[in-house]
């Protein structure tokens, strides 16, 4: 109780000045110490070990399931005719969608000059990389003969055989591949100054060599910073249409087909909004334990969580609106088959999944209208978990219900996941969290250099409030 009274509440809106983003009256040294302590502590907290053990076990489970799949065949999954896509593509779209929040925080919030992004952008970009890795696994293993997946790429061969560029499945290859490479570059380049910090503070020779190699010799030169900032801005500007296009291309996997429930033009914006929505929920899921365990509460403050909650509210409302519009247009079209597809989602054999989705995606984020819910840490975590579940079920509902009741009633069939399906899904979380925990321990978890730029000390000793919109042409009075 006493600590709550003393803790500075930066979620209070004061029109006279902007809320501080770094609490505790800290200076650059303190911020650096706080972030580096996560990686430099002789031993990570016990909770890290526990979480890592669980994730590693799940990772082994994933490897076992994938090997079993490859050696036995796709029949170990519950797929049938007509449900040719089940958990595999659901998981793929789920993980790709999660990745989009990281790029949004890094790139789009940067373009909008949202300074609060600096505390969360590093680990959310890392989340993007690991989520895209998990996503890329599924199209690879679901093809049946994964030893010939190189055919996805336009490789020269003696048969003049090339992939079909009209297929959205191939657009996926290019879109997700480009997204992975650009995200990786953006993340690594952004990390250079912080890797240099690790290098300069390294205690052992091994750490100095490794971080020194990774930091590429960064020395904080202003001339370098100039080009660095330009490159960062350009990457942000490139990543913004990229993130919008990637999930649109993923949605084309469905929208370009003829299946009722899939063949609708609402999919690209609907999927992108849903991706951002689900991705922020995962960022929240990671941020809340991370700030607690690693002692970063003064960097990832309740204001940051509140801002993320507001974005979740906005995108959740968009997703809810999209659900409503889909249903309305299906009815308004007068196409009884289209309308049936949507009615059967709500009332048919998968109604339980549909209503889980509605409660988690439409009802739960609406709680964020209340400031109390937005600023209570455990509440934001709980709602974020609900949204994670809801977003997985959204993809499940879209894919499986549409496929299970396709064109001819004589073709309809129910999809029931097998134990391999379920363990593969669980195992993918193992891959994700293993990589993320390793990242927390060995790489800079917060973008220290960027956080320093939003601290008041970075603008000089003249405290004329917080200049929220730095402009290159600001008048800088010589001292």
């Amino acid at each position, binding site marked *: 109780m006493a600590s709550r009274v003393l803790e500075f509440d930066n979620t209070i809106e004061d029109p006279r000045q902007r809320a501080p983003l770094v609490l505790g009256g800290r*200076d650059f*040294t303190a911020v*650096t110490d706080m972030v580096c302590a996560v990686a430099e502590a002789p031993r990570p907290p016990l909770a890290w070990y526990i979480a890592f053990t669980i994730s590693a076990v799940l990772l082994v489970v994933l490897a076992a399931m994938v090997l079993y799949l490859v050696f036995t065949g796709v029949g170990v999954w519950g797929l049938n005719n007509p449900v040719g896509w089940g958990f595999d593509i659901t998981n793929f779209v789920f993980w790709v969608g999660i990745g989009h929040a990281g790029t949004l925080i890094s790139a789009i919030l940067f373009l909008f000059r949202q300074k609060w992004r600096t505390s969360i952008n590093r680990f959310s970009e890392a989340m993007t990389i690991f989520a895209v890795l998990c996503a890329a696994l599924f199209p690879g293993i679901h093809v049946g003969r994964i030893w010939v997946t190189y055919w996805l790429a*336009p490789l*020269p061969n*003696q048969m*003049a*055989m*090339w992939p*079909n*560029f*009209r297929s959205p499945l*191939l*657009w996926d290859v*290019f*879109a997700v591949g*480009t997204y992975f*490479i*650009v995200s990786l*570059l953006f993340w690594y*380049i952004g990390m250079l100054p912080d890797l*240099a*910090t690790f290098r*300069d503070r390294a205690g052992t020779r091994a750490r100095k060599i490794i971080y020194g*190699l990774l930091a*590429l*010799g*960064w*020395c*904080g*030169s*202003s*001339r*370098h*910073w*100039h*080009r*660095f900032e*330009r*490159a960062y801005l*350009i*990457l942000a500007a*490139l*990543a913004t*249409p*990229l993130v919008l*296009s990637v999930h649109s*291309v993923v949605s084309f996997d469905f929208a370009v087909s003829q299946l009722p429930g899939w063949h609708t033009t609402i999919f690209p914006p609907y999927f992108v909004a849903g991706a951002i929505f689900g991705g922020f929920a995962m960022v929240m899921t990671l941020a809340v334990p991370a700030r607690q365990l690693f002692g970063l509460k003064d960097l990832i403050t309740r204001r940051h969580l509140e801002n993320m909650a507001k974005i979740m509210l906005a995108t959740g409302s968009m997703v809810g609106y999209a659900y409503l519009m889909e249903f309305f247009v299906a009815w308004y079209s007068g196409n009884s088959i289209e309308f049936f597809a949507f009615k059967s989602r709500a009332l048919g054999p998968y109604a339980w999944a549909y209503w889980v989705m509605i409660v988690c995606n439409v009802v739960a984020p609406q709680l964020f209208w209340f400031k109390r819910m937005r600023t209570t840490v455990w509440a934001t975590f709980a709602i974020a978990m609900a949204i994670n579940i809801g977003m997985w079920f959204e993809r499940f509902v879209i894919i499986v219900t549409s496929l299970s009741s396709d064109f001819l009633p004589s073709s309809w069939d129910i999809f029931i996941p097998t134990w391999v399906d379920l363990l593969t899904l669980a195992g993918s979380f193992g891959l994700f969290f293993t990589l993320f925990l390793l990242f927390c321990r060995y790489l800079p978890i917060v973008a220290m*250099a*960027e956080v*320093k*730029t939003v601290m008041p*000390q*970075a*603008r000089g000793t*003249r405290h004329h409030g917080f200049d929220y919109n*730095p402009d290159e042409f600001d008048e*800088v009075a*010589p*001292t």
Partner: protein
Amino acid sequence: MSELTLAAKKRHVTPAAAAGRELYGLLVEFDDVEALKAAARRVREGGYQRWDAHSPFPVHGMDEAMGIRHTRLPWVVFFFGLLGCAAGVLLQWHTNAMDPQQFKFIPTFLQGFDFRISGKPLWSFPANIPVIFEMTVLLAALAAVIGMLAMNGLPRWHHALFGHPRFQRVTTDRFFICVEARDPKFHETRTSELLATLGGSEVERVYWPQRSPPPAWGRITGLIVLCLALFPPLWAYKMNVSLKAQPRIHIIQDMDNQEKYKAQQKNVAFADSRAMRPAIPGTIAREDAWALGTDPHFYEGRVGNAWAASFPPQIEITESLLRRGQRQFNIYCAVCHGLDGSGNGIVAKRAREKTQITSGWVPPTSLHDQTVRDRPVGHLFNTITNGIRTMPPYGDQLSVADRWAIVAYIRALERSQNARLEDVPPEVRSELR
């Protein structure tokens, strides 16, 4: 302990040796951003060019203070973005919309192809946009990153300033200005005096690091590793070009080696050890009579070396034969030759309408041409069996007897278009008037 000794200790050299090293530049340390910017302005006004300010984060306003011009990186990115766009267009056009026959000079493994899907256009921009867009973004992003690193001269793992003990705080919370000795206006005393007045720490000297050559054990190990690294590619090449008695290792079996008996293989389950069993006694292949040549008149329409001029003895010209011939003619032949045999069947009519394919279209001969009327029946039979010019063979679709029936019907058709009124039976003559 003097700075010199400290620096010497850091680099594991004796102070005396340190004193003999070449000066890299002079370094001043600052506590805060304002002091750094003011100092930077002063150094710039001093006319120095080879100098830099170092900070743990990009300082707002530093570009103006130092006089840093806008970088050309955005132009590089733009150029590579356009290149990526062109690459996306070319890739898709080459692999999906190119007629390989037009570009025969391209080697086989790089040949393009034209995807004909339901008559859709070979190149349709909306379908090709996603990949074009992704290629543009990819090349532009790669250019931004690689361009930025290259323009900054990174990676540069060895920097004179890294040897300086205090400089390690540049990535945490300290700010520095360093003027290089290579600057044209550098003068050890005057520059030092200017730096001392900037409001930072005392001026420090930074020396070029002495790069000692790698130790002997390092070089030998490196050489050994390099030699060992050559083994795999050389071995792979040898395996590729050499001949072996054993078959290659085949990991993905893919139903490539099937446990079934093929023709000419041995099978000890049978008394004669053959996998292939002889035909059951009394089996007659379809082509036997033709192959053995027992009845060329009936089976081939040939008598000796000439086409048969008369029907074979097995064929008796009756009304039922002609009706059969009419039925089969209307089914198989009338589509091109027309119901009356004059060559205006629906296929021929459509071909005439479709001007694109008249270049390869040979119209069906009218069966009433004198040429056809003069041909012996055996020739007609052979035409039906084996085809002629662009007419396909119908020998697989019609039995031998049916073909003779059609020939008989053709003769009847020809007669019908080249007859006089006297040839018509009297009772039917009135209908024609």
